[in-house]
């Protein structure tokens, strides 16, 4: 998100969006396969390193589908960032 704010206030071009989103989806596909849900996917949590590698971060409100009790209930509650960041 900071790269966008600093240099691309009108947003990225489609090629760049396709790459970044594709890499992000790969991480989600992996997390979901492991039973995790991230629950706060937004530009601010998608990091890009100097080699162009895309990483998803911030598991502060993530949940695990295999958890029980409190955590189980918490999946029906609202988490994330107000206004979607």
């Amino acid at each position, binding site marked *: 998100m900071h790269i966008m704010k*600093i240099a691309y206030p009108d947003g990225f071009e489609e*090629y760049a969006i396709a790459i970044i989103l594709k890499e992000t989806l*790969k991480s989600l596909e*992996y997390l979901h396969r492991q039973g995790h849900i991230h629950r706060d996917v937004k530009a601010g949590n998608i990091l890009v390193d100097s080699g162009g590698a895309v*990483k998803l971060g911030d598991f502060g409100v993530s949940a695990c589908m295999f958890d029980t009790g409190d955590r189980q209930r918490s999946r029906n509650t609202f988490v994330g960032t107000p206004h979607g960041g």
Partner: protein
Amino acid sequence: MIAMCLVKDQTKRPTAEKLLKHSFFRQAKSPEYVVRNLLQGLPPLWERVKVIQLKDVAQLALKKMRSAEKEALSQDDIRREAQTMSLIDHPNVIKAYCSFVVDRRLWGSNAFYGRRFMLAHNENSLSRWF
């Protein structure tokens, strides 16, 4: 593609796996494209951080207030986050190597940029620095 993601009924919404097969992603090139076209010519990271900090002063103040008021996260929550991060392992996911608690502060290290991140916790507020 975006419309598909916004379908309210989750049974009709594509999974991450399905969405990856969408034709939109056929134009996705290699990470080098991002380096060449997005990252080239950007000011160094510390300068970007400085500019953003100035821009976001008002927003940050608001966030701080909000976290002090109601986001009184427990140490357990932070520990859980660190634990989740140390369990997962994928090239597109931030990886945490270890975490420890000192003076009611939870420290961790991750692989991103070889930097350390710190999760600090005090009585009413939680702040993070990556």
